[in-house]
C-alpha cells in the first residue's frame, strides 16, 4: 500500500495523471458532468435490465398516459406513454444506446481521419497541405446540418448514413487542430533529436509528434461528441436520421410533435434528456480544457 500513497515523481506518467486529475476535479461542474456521463453510459449499457418495459411494446390500453405525478398517471409508466402506448422512460433508456453509440462512432471516425489528414498536412506541408486545407475549407463553407442533410440524401436516410454525414462535417475541426499542433511541435528539439537518431516519417508522425498534440484534440473530441448528439437528434427530428420505430431521441420528438397540445410529456422528456446529456458533456469538456490547456492553467 505504501507504493500508492507515495507521491509520484515528476515527469512520470502517474505524476502527469495525478496533476491532470487535480486540475480536472478542481472544477465542480466538470465532476458533475463526468458523473452524469458515467451514469448514463451505465444505463445505456445495461438498458435491458434497467428499463421497466420493452421499448417497442405497445400497450393499447394505455395510450398517452401522463407521467406518474398526474392524477391519471400510473406507476407502470413513470414518465407516461406515447401515442401508441409505449413506455417513454424505457424508450429514453434504449435511446441512450443509439445516441451515445452513434456519437461515439462519429467522434472515432472523424477524429481518426482528421488526425491522419492533419498529420499529413502539418508534417509534409507543400502541395499535400494545400490540397487538404482547401478541401476542408470547402466542407466548412456549407452549414454543417445542411451538408449532413445533403449527404444523407445521397446515402439514403438511416443510421449509417447519418453517422457518416455527421462525421464528415466534424472532420475539418480535427484536421485544422492537428495540423496547427503539428506545425507548432515540428521544429522543437525533441523532434529534431528523434529525426537525427534515424526515426522514419511514420515513427516521427505517430510516435513522436502525435502524443504531444493530443491535448487540444481530446478537448475537441468532447465538443464533437456533444455536437454529434445534437446533430443526430436534429437529423432524426427531420426524419432523415435513425428511422422509426427505433427509439432515437430526435425521432421520438418528431413523433410526439403532433401531440404537443395534449401530451406535453411526450415532447418534454426526450428533449430534456438531449439537453442534459449535451450540457453535461460540455461541462466536462470545459473542465478538460482547463486541465489540459497549459495556457489556461492556474500557475
Amino acid at each position, binding site marked *: 500500500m505504501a507504493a500508492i500513497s507515495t507521491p509520484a515523481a515528476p515527469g512520470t506518467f502517474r505524476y502527469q495523471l495525478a496533476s491532470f486529475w487535480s486540475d480536472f476535479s478542481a472544477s465542480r461542474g466538470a465532476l458533475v458532468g463526468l458523473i452524469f456521463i458515467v451514469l448514463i453510459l451505465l444505463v445505456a449499457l445495461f438498458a435491458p435490465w434497467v428499463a421497466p418495459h420493452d421499448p417497442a411494446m405497445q400497450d393499447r390500453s394505455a395510450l398517452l398516459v401522463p407521467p406518474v405525478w398526474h392524477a391519471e398517471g400510473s406507476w407502470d409508466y413513470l414518465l407516461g406513454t406515447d401515442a401508441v402506448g409505449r413506455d417513454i422512460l424505457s424508450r429514453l433508456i434504449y435511446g441512450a444506446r443509439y445516441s451515445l453509440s452513434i456519437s461515439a462512432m462519429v467522434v472515432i471516425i472523424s477524429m481518426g481521419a482528421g488526425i491522419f489528414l492533419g498529420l499529413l498536412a502539418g508534417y509534409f506541408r507543400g502541395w499535400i497541405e494545400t490540397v487538404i486545407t482547401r478541401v476542408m475549407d*470547402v466542407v466548412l463553407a456549407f452549414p454543417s446540418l445542411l451538408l449532413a442533410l445533403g449527404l444523407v440524401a445521397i446515402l439514403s436516410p438511416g443510421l449509417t448514413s447519418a453517422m457518416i454525414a455527421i462525421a464528415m462535417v466534424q472532420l475539418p475541426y480535427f484536421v485544422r487542430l492537428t495540423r496547427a499542433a503539428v506545425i507548432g511541435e515540428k521544429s522543437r528539439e525533441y523532434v529534431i533529436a528523434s529525426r537525427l537518431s534515424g526515426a522514419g516519417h511514420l515513427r516521427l508522425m505517430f510516435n513522436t509528434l502525435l502524443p504531444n498534440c493530443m491535448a487540444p484534440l481530446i478537448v475537441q473530441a468532447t465538443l464533437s461528441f456533444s455536437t454529434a448528439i445534437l446533430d443526430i437528434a436534429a437529423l432524426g*427530428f*427531420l426524419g432523415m436520421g435513425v428511422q422509426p420505430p427505433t427509439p432515437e431521441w430526435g425521432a421520438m420528438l418528431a413523433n410526439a410533435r403532433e401531440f404537443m397540445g395534449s401530451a406535453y410529456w411526450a415532447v418534454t422528456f426526450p428533449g430534456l434528456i438531449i*439537453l442534459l446529456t449535451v*450540457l453535461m458533456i460540455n461541462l466536462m469538456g470545459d473542465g478538460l480544457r482547463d486541465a489540459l490547456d497549459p495556457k489556461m492553467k492556474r500557475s
Partner: protein
Amino acid sequence: MFKFFLVKLAQLVPTFIGVTIVAFAFIRLLPGDPILLMAGERGISAERYAELKAQMGFDRSLVAQYFDFLKGLLHGDLGNSLVTHSPVMDEFMSRFPATLELSLFALAFAVIIGLPAGVLAAVKRGKTLDHTVMGVSLTGYSMPIFWWGLLLIMLFSSTLGWTPVSGRISFLYFIDSVTGFMTIDSLIAGDWGAFLSALHHLVLPAIVLGTIPLAVIARQTRSSMLEVLGEDYVRTARAKGLSNFRVIMVHTLRNALISVVTVIGLQVGLLLAGAILTETIFSWPGIGKWMIDAISRRDYPSVQGGLVLIAFIVMIVNLLVDIAYGVINPRIRH
C-alpha cells in the same frame, strides 16, 4: 488595405470552385439514374428518356457537363425546380428575405443580450452573477433548438395564447413586397397593424434561432474582456485614476470587441444551419424550410442550387468578417 482585400478574395477562388464541384457531384452521386428518379413511380418511355438525357446534358462527358453547370451558375442560371418548374434562382430569391429577416432579428436578440451579459460576467468575475451568466449560456449552447422551439410554442402559443404558432404575418394582412422584409414592407405601406403582426410572428422564431449565438457571444465577450482586463494599458488607465466605468467601457470593451465582432460574423453559418430547424418548426417560409422540402421531395436541382447559393453566402460573409477584422485590428494586415 486594398491588397489585403485582393489576397483574401483570391483565397476564396479555390474554395468556390470546390463548392461548385461538390454541388455538381451531388446529383451524379445520388444512387440510381437521376432521370429515372425524376420520372418517379410512373416510369418513362425510351424516347422521352433519351430526350430528357440530351436536354439535361447527361449524354455528354462529365467535364463538359461541369463547365455547362459553371457557365449557367455564372449567368445566374441554376436550372428549374422539378416540382414547380420555375427557375431555382427565383425560388431561392423569393424566400431568402424571409430567412434574412429572421436571422437579423435573431442576431440582434443575441447581441443585445449576449454582449452586456458577457461584460457583466467578466466584471463580476467569480461572483454569483458570473456563475449564473455562464451557466445559462452553457445551457443555451447545449440546447437542441428544435426542442426549445416546441417548448416555447407549447408555453407561449398553446397555453398562454400570446404568440402565433406559425407563418410570417396574419392572414388578415396583404402587404406588397418591396424589400421582402415583412416588418419594413408593412411600414412602407403605413400599416401599423400589419407591422405589429409581423413582429408578433417574429418573436419566438428569433429567440429560438438566436439562442445558441447568444450563448456563444456571451462566452466570447466574457473571455476576451477578461483577457484585455489583464493588459498593461488597462492597469495604466486605472493607475491614471480613471473611473471604473470608463476603464471598462472605453479601454477594455473597445479592444475586447475585436474578437467578439469576428465571432458574431462567424455565427452566420450557424444561423443558416439553425434556420433549417427553426423554419421547419415555425413553418417559416424561408430557404431552410425550402431546402428541407426540396430534399424530401427529391427536387435535386433545387437542392443543388440551394447548396451552392448558401455556401456562397457563407463564404461572402466570412470574407466580409475577415476584412472587418483587418480594418479594426491593423495588426492582422501584414
